[in-house]
């Protein structure tokens, strides 16, 4: 069953905000089309128009040459269009099996769901990703108990279980480790030969070049370019997206030997996932934390910030510290940019001003000096090049990259001396990423110390003085200088021993 879908001159407004002004996309059976664009460029809206979650205001959808109208996800599903949602369409309180087969449960006599068959069919699907799970993933596990990568895989399997003609993968690799991405790409290659059409939405340039046959670039709601992947280079693609040259050529922090004193000394740090971590960091250093997802990176940053309990000793500026509450960490000049922006980093429906000043209100007196607070927040916004309609707009009105600037801004307001960053560029567009890289380099030059976890290997290699690779709750390898290459980083992430370590 082949398919060809073409979206033409799509316009979509949310209230007064134009999400798409002229969106175009064409996809046919047996090919992977990468839908690319900076955050807020309309990628998600475009995929939601195709899968019926939002109804377009103007323009048209042609399916197999005939105009169609999707008023609900149900309409699109009927036509064989299925989606892996960026925000996941899973019900946390239900089991893996129930989630995957929701609406298509095999029924027995009297309309009773045949649970045995549901389980068996789920096991068949789980086998597609067999061997890539840290812990065995079972059909009767509750989705709320799964780690992010397994949730993501369940979401993928759910979309696949519809046996779609067109599969939309919206940031489907964001939570996956490299083995899981590899497996997904093998499956995508197989689906291509089965005449499925695939739309691949991603920020990761390397993945786009690995998997896509064609590309379609959105910028500010408008399709600005489309063509075959083989005819375009990474730099040209980036230029199309941001209209700004060479964003990836960020300068690496000067590689001179840092002779400043050690300011952070961690010994034998243990939590539920960490099994004895030792780290020492010099003042003004930008230390990268690498490794596959979920090897304890999050626990490391959270325990330093006093957010979770831990065992072990931490010395900061020569004094032993053991924070039991983030408040204590903040008093010592620590700041944490958490991994889940929407849930942990921001009060989404509150204003930019409130978010920016949340950790700092105490400095504005008992009766708040609002004018001063506004001024300070506005200055911080300007210095971070924050694009906003006004300080009183809710954070939810911002694109991902700008929302992340608010998270970073609210900590910079406090002049922290140690920054803990948990994958700060996840879901952030390339233009903003480049600004972050500059910012981090500048902060280090100012003498701030940064611990920087990233799921993007290129970032770690390009930006950090040295990278500590976590594997199974321990530091597997430390990479620095000439040994800090992407190949070594990937090898260490997978737990492979190699001679490049210092």
């Amino acid at each position, binding site marked *: 069953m082949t398919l060809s879908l073409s979206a033409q001159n799509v316009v979509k407004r949310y209230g007064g905000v134009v999400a798409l002004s002229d969106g175009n996309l064409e996809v046919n059976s047996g090919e992977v089309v990468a839908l690319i664009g900076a955050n807020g460029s309309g990628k998600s809206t475009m995929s939601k128009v195709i899968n019926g*979650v939002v109804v377009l205001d103007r323009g048209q959808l042609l399916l197999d040459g005939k105009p169609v109208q999707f008023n*609900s*996800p*149900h309409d699109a*599903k009927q036509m064989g269009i299925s*989606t892996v*949602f960026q925000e*996941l*369409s*899973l*019900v*946390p*309180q*239900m089991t893996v099996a*129930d989630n995957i087969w*929701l*609406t298509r*449960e095999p*029924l027995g006599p*009297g*309309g*009773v*769901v045949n649970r045995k068959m549901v389980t068996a069919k789920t096991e068949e699907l789980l086998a597609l990703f067999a061997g890539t799970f840290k812990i065995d993933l079972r059909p009767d596990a*509750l989705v*709320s*108990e799964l780690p992010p990568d397994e949730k993501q895989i369940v979401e993928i399997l*759910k979309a696949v279980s519809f046996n779609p003609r067109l599969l939309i993968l919206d940031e489907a690799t964001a939570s996956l480790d490299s083995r899981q991405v590899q497996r997904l790409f093998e499956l995508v290659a197989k689906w291509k030969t089965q005449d499925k059409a695939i739309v691949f939405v991603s920020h990761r340039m390397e993945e786009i070049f690995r998997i896509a046959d064609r590309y379609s670039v959105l910028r500010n709601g408008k399709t600005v370019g489309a063509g075959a992947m083989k005819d375009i280079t990474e730099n040209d693609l980036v230029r199309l997206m941001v209209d700004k040259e060479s964003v990836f050529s960020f300068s690496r922090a000067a590689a001179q030997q840092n002779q400043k004193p050690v300011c952070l000394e961690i010994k034998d740090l243990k*939590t*539920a996932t960490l099994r004895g971590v030792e780290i020492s960091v010099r003042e003004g250093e930008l230390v990268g934390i690498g490794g596959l997802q979920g090897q304890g990176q999050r626990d490391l940053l959270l325990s330093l910030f006093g957010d979770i*309990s*831990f*065992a*072990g*000793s931490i010395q900061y500026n020569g004094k032993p510290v*053991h924070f*039991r509450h983030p408040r204590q960490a903040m008093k010592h000049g620590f700041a944490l940019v958490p991994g889940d922006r929407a849930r942990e980093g921001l009060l989404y429906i509150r204003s930019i001003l409130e978010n920016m000043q949340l950790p700092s209100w105490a400095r504005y007196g008992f009766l708040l000096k609002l004018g001063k607070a506004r001024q300070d927040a506005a200055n911080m916004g300007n210095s971070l090049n924050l694009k906003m309609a006004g300080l009183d707009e809710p954070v939810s009105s911002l694109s991902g990259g700008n929302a992340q600037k608010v998270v970073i801004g609210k900590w910079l307001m406090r002049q922290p001396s140690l920054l803990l960053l948990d994958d700060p560029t996840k879901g952030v567009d390339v233009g903003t990423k480049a600004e972050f890289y500059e910012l981090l380099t500048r902060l280090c030059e100012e003498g701030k110390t940064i611990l920087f976890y990233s799921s993007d290997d290129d970032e770690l290699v390009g930006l950090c003085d040295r990278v500590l690779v976590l594997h199974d709750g321990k530091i597997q390898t430390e990479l620095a200088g000439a040994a800090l290459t992407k190949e070594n980083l990937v090898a260490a992430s997978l737990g492979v021993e190699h001679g490049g370590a210092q």
Partner: protein
Amino acid sequence: MKRFNLNALMTRNPALFALILLVLAIVVNYILQPNLFARDTLNSNMRVFLPIILLSVGQAVVILGGGIDISVGGIVSIVNTILATRVGLEGSPEAMWQYVAVSLLAGVLAGAINGFFIAYLRLQPIITTYATSFLYFGFALFILPNPGGGIPAQIASLYRNTSPLGLPLAFYVIAIVLGAWWYIRSTRYGNYLFAVGGKAQAAYETAVPVTLVQFSTYVISGLMAAFSGIAITMLSGSGNAEIGSAMTLNSITAVVIGGTAMSGGVGGVAGPIMGAITLGLIQNIISFAQINTWWETLVKALIIVIALATPGIINLFKITSQRAIGRPE
């Protein structure tokens, strides 16, 4: 390392807590009233508990689906006043069964009105049903402005004294309700209900008919409220437009002690049934312990608050002990 996870345990066995509470209430009640399990005592207890049990089951379905129904008491009152005025003390059994059918239709209609506003016009459940509760109580008062009327004694006695095989009638009703719930839970509709209550947006994106499912929960609740109204009318034998007013909050309380999350998507019907029985037993205990009625409400409220707070308190202790382990030597 497999850690004990209270939340996961509660998600998988939502009725566990209700069961513990029920056993506790039975034990205390038994100590105060040694003939608790005697046939007559059992029967007289269960026939009093049944109206709230039925109401809680309907409430549980709505709450599972992510809503709440504050208007159930009003529906009980409408049904009670319809039966008390239309059938009358001298009425025939035929008239009674006829108006039982009318009552059930009235319950479904009232539920459908709630469902229409909430599911199709997307109004807030708590505000909508609060508003319609006045509508329904007002309608009940319109039917029967002053307490009075009634149903034939023989029918009331049928409800009060029937005990096939020596077991109270209520046991059979509960068994039928549990059977029906088990069936619904096993169908696709059951999955839809949990999905909509758990995360409506995810359900919508998966092409679940979210609006229809939400609508249906209020219709079910209306129907169960009608059954509850029929039961309480047969119990009391008379009519009173205010009869349902105290029942709404009890139905919600029963659902909550029954382990059904107010946020929806977790729980079932067995827990709320146990919760409703527990509430009734607490009432018994209070009267047998000869607590001054002045204290009754306070004691009842305290027991409910403690029951509700227990999972949170257990969690709190768990966190504190974890923190202690994490301390350096």
